[in-house]
Structures are given as C-alpha cells and as structure tokens.
C-alpha cells in the first residue's frame, strides 16, 4: 500500500465520474455524508465544526433528510442513535467539549450496536481551550473516552479530499460493523480550501443495512453470524426486540451469567478485529529503506511529508508512515514500515498520545522519539527536519 501521494484509495467511494470542486474541509464532510446516504443529522453548534451542521441544515432537506439542532451534544448523539435505530444513516459533528459530553451515549451505541458517525473537529484543549486553534488532543479520548471496554473505530483524514473519502468510509464501516465510528480531524483541515473529486450523484456505493427478517422460532436479535455482526431489527418489521445498554445475552435481555457475559463481550470487541481489512487504512512514503521513520497523521502528516522530501534531498533516509485509521491501529503495517528503521519520530499536536500506541506496537524494536506542539500552532516541516537531524547528531 505504498502511495506516492497523500491520498490512498478509499474502499467506500466508488467514483465512476468525478468533478473537481474546491471545498472547505467541513463542507466536504457534509457533502460526503449526503453522498454516503446520511439522512439524519442532529448536532449542537461548536467551533470549529459548526459549518458541517450549517451545510447539512440545507443539504439534508434537499434529499428528503432531517436536520435537527438539539439542546446539547448529549441529546444530539442520542437523537442520532434514535434515528439510526429507526433505520436511517445518521451523523453528528462536534469538537472537544461536545465530544466529551457525547461519551456516555457513544458507549451506549457501541454496546447496543447502533451504527452512527461522529465527526470530531479537534481544537485546542483541555476544557474550552482554544476554540479556533488546531490540535490533535482527542486521539486518546476517541479510544478510551467512554467507560468500559468497547469496540472503537476512529479515522483521521489529512486533506479535504480525504475528509470526503473517510466520511463515506465511516458510514460504510459503521453500517457494516454496527458500531459508532469517529472521524477525527483538526481545525486546519476543517477550514482548508482544496480541490476534491466529488463523485457524480449516486456514484457512491451505499450498501444497505443488514436487516433481520423472516424469524422462525425464538428470535435472538444479538446472535451473530461468522462476521460477528448480528443483523439489525427494524421497528415495525414484527420482531419487537429489546435494546438495552445493560449487558445482554443474544436474546437482547439483560444477563449477568459469567459465561454469557464473556461470550457477548468477546464477540462485541472481536468484531472490529475480525474485520480489520475493512477498517484499516494507511499510507506510506519512502519507507522501504528508511533509517528514520516518521509516524504522523492528520495535518501533521503533511508537514512530515514535506520534511521527508527535504531530508531525502539532503541525503537523509527518512520515510513516513501515515495511519489514516487510528483505531484500531494498523499494527502490522507499522511493524512492516518500521522493520528497517533505526529510529522512529512521532510528531503530534498534543503532549504525546498516539506515540503511546506506537511504542506499544514496536515494543522497543527501535527508539521512539516525540515532537509535541501544544501551543495551538500546527507543526511545520522544518521542526520535523530539525528533530530528525538532532536524532542523527
């Protein structure tokens, strides 16, 4: 999967004919949601994500969809879950403070296996932080923000084109694996104006949700087939099932029987692992012979790409591994990319978050250095170049 450009092929997007259009990141996200079949959005305004809601407030009615501005982010994600239970593809968008408020119901959606998409446009934190400044501080919140162990999928696009692709992919993964999916990007890409290949209307393949039908005998709504994903019950179709955030058995009803709980939890957590091929996406640049491997995502990866080119021109064998899927982390791909590296550098716009995962995956195979910026400014190429040179000095 070595690609020379920042963009890799997006499985969800099947473009027959595409029109190049200049779009801001948040606008691309909204249009991608429509293309992916999203017909319900509930949200609460917050910088720097508000444009997604604003665009969808007039794009959704055009396609017969529903937009609703709720009273807060807790209600927003609850309404999105409710709409998804009703059968619609549904999404919300927010930033750090709102993402914090959503965590309980994200856990609920994971536990009850409700497909939905959350876009978190990261801004400076903690707390109200810097609403208009970029950051990458929600990476670990996306992974561990809700209590308990739960399946997690988080995607981190690095360009406006990729916001378009990853938003479509987020819906595809959410629907196929019956799980919430988070799209994480920062304020810079959210407001960047770039050209996007927008597929012709109807050109994006939207796989219909797998519905339960034709029940004979006692119906068990949480009984999964080989893919680990049970078909969903559509209210009104006659199954009259029960949905609860309490730990439940295949019947949908609460259980505390250890063997059943263990079986249900392992299936719930395992369905993501079993479908890594669908979920994992990454890109590499000049990793084959790299002495120093830079691992970067989102806007930081763009500075890293430039740094790799500058370093290569100066004879330093630098390479870039760019996870587009942050969770589950593309472990094997990173190990392959880092196999020949003498050193690894992880630049991030936080105090050091994804680096913890990278250290875990590499398990000491190569020393892992950090480059962290927490002043509300993006990391720039020369900082990465300087950090790499320092490693070799």
């Amino acid at each position, binding site marked *: 999967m070595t690609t020379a450009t920042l963009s890799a092929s997006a499985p969800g997007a099947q473009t027959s004919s595409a029109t190049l259009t200049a779009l801001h990141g948040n606008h691309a996200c909204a249009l991608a949601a429509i293309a992916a079949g999203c017909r*319900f959005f*509930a949200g609460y305004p917050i910088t720097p994500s508000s444009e997604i809601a604003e665009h969808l407030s*007039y794009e959704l*009615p*055009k396609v*017969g*969809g*529903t937009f*609703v501005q*709720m*009273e*807060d982010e*807790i*209600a*927003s994600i*609850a*309404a*999105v*879950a*409710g*709409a*998804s*239970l*009703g*059968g*619609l593809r*549904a999404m919300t968008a927010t930033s750090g403070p709102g993402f914090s408020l959503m965590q*309980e*119901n994200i856990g*609920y959606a994971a536990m009850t296996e409700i497909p939905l998409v959350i876009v978190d446009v990261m801004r400076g934190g903690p707390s109200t932080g810097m609403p208009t400044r970029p950051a990458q501080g929600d990476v670990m919140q996306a992974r561990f923000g809700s209590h308990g162990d739960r399946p997690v999928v988080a995607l981190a696009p690095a360009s406006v084109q990729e916001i378009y692709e990853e938003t479509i992919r987020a819906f595809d993964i959410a629907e196929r694996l019956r799980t919430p999916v988070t799209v994480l990007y920062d304020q810079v890409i959210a407001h960047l104006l770039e050209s996007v290949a927008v597929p012709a209307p109807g050109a994006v393949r939207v796989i219909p949700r797998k519905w339960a039908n034709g029940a004979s005998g006692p119906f068990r709504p949480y009984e999964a087939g080989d893919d680990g994903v049970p078909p969903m*019950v559509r*209210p*009104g*179709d*006659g199954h*009259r*099932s*029960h*949905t*609860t*955030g*309490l730990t439940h058995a295949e019947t949908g*009803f*609460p259980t505390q029987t250890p063997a059943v709980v263990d079986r249900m939890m392992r299936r719930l957590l395992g369905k993501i692992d079993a479908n890594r091929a669908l979920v994992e996406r990454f890109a590499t640049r000049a990793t084959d012979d790299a002495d120093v491997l830079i691992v970067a995502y989102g806007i930081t990866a763009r500075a890293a790409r430039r740094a790799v080119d500058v370093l290569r021109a100066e004879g330093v064998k630098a390479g870039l591994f760019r996870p587009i899927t942050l969770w589950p982390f593309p472990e094997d791909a990173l190990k392959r990319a880092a196999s020949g590296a003498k050193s690894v550098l992880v630049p991030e716009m936080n105090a050091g978050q994804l680096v913890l995962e990278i250290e875990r995956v590499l398990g000491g195979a190569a020393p892992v250095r950090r480059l962290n910026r927490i002043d509300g400014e993006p990391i720039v190429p020369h900082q990465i170049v300087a950090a790499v040179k320092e490693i070799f000095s």
Partner: protein
Amino acid sequence: MTDATFSPTDAALGGGEPPFDVREWLRLETMPHFMCPGCGHGIALRTMLWAAHDCGIDKDDLAVVCGIGCSGRIGGYIDANTFHTTHGRPLAFATGLKLARPDLTVVVVTGDGDCLAIGGNHLIHACRRNLDITCLMLNNEVYGMTGGQVSPTTSAHRITSTTQAGNFEPTFDACRLAEAAGAGFVGREVTRQAPALKSLIARAIRHHGFSFVEVMSDCTEIYGRKNELGEAPEMILGQKADMRPEVYNDAPDRPFRPNALPTGVFVERGLPEYGDSVRAHVAAVRTGGTGR
C-alpha cells in the same frame, strides 16, 4: 400471571371491545418482574398497555423508549419495540426515532429523577418542540432504583437516604413546567385511579403533539417504608386523600404527599407539531422554496 383474578380484563372493569388482556401485551417469558410488592410502577405499566389497547395500536408499531430507573425497567416487559436507553436521555433518543419513523407510536417512560433532574433539559426542549411523543413520567418522589435518594419531587420533610433529617429542598411542579415549556398536552393522574389514568394516557397518545403525563406512583419498599407511610394499600389510599384537591382541597395535611397536586388534563392545545413542521420545511426546500 396465569391466574385470571390477577389479570382482570377491561370488560371486568366495565367495558372495552375487544376486551383488554394484559398478557397479550407482555413478554411473559421475562416474568417474574423485578418490582417490589405494591410498587406503583406496576400499575403504571398495566395502565399504559391498557391505554395502548384502547387506542387500537398494533404492537409492531409501538416503540417504548425508557430511561434508567425502576421506571425505565418496565419497558423490558412490554411485547413491543422497546429501548432501554441512558439515564435522563430517553426523550432525546425518542426525538431521533420519531423523526426517522413518524409511522411509529412513540411512548417514553421516565422517572422523576430521570426526567426532571438529569433529563430536565431534554424535557423542556421536548415540550418546546412539540414532537408527537407521549411522555409518561412515573413520579414516586424518589430515586427508587439507586436506593431511595432525594429527587426533585420529594415532598417537604421526607426522609430519604440522602436527607436523613428530612428534605428541605423545594420541588418541581412538572406539569406547570411542561405547560410553560410548550407541551401540547399536559395531564396528571394517580395510579390509584387506574381507569382514569388509562383514559388520560389514551388521550395523551391520541393527541398529535408532545404529551406529558405525570403518573403519581408509589415507591412502597423504600420511600414508603422510610417515611412510615404504611403498606401499599395505605399508600395508595393516601393518594386519594391528597390527590383530589377539587374534592379535598380543604382537607388538613395528610401524612402522604402533604402538598396536594391537582389531577386531570391541564392543557390540550393544537400547537404546530414538530414533525409536521420539519416535513413542511423539507417539502418547501425540495420545491425550490426557502421553507419559510
């Protein structure tokens, strides 16, 4: 649940065709239920199903969205599309569900803590939007499920596990709150008056708009015992003494619910229903208008 004497039909209570049989609405395989003897929530459950029956609702098209609490647990027993959501949030879940599926009859079951404390913001906005949902708030004046802590409706001086020397917090009048916030339908009834409660809930379900019904229920096991309100029969009789102020307005304070609350339908008004407004907006946009 198989003894007919414990499951009188609507006919036995004086009318209804076809007769109401609660067993047809329950997931009998989930019995026995969790409720303590005499718990008012059981009456609320039965009454709500009776109302659904009277409204001629098809179980397949009934969605019951519950919060967390003893009140929230009753949904699991109903043979319909049931959703046990998160604490305080059932109205928000129901808002998404009803907007996505206007064909479903959506009934929310919530408690006084679920609806007025953690979910208070969602309640006022659900009232304001006036989406066609029926909200049954089972008010037992206490947090039953978590062991009897004070709630926003606990009466003055009551002993709870967090007001050991008596409650000194003011209470909400949920019905006046709902009315002020814009609900199309607001009413209150006591579990003692099951037929009246059934009629009220049926009227609320039939109302096109947001219907708020406060069901005065009894937490016999915790609230009743802690406050020496007697056994379930005494508690339910106490409802009569204090819940019919039109009749008993001049009665001196009784030990149970000294702050008498009126019952009946308080508000029934034809305000724009939110789903209709959304659909009109969508239609206007699609035909090239602004939606204004």
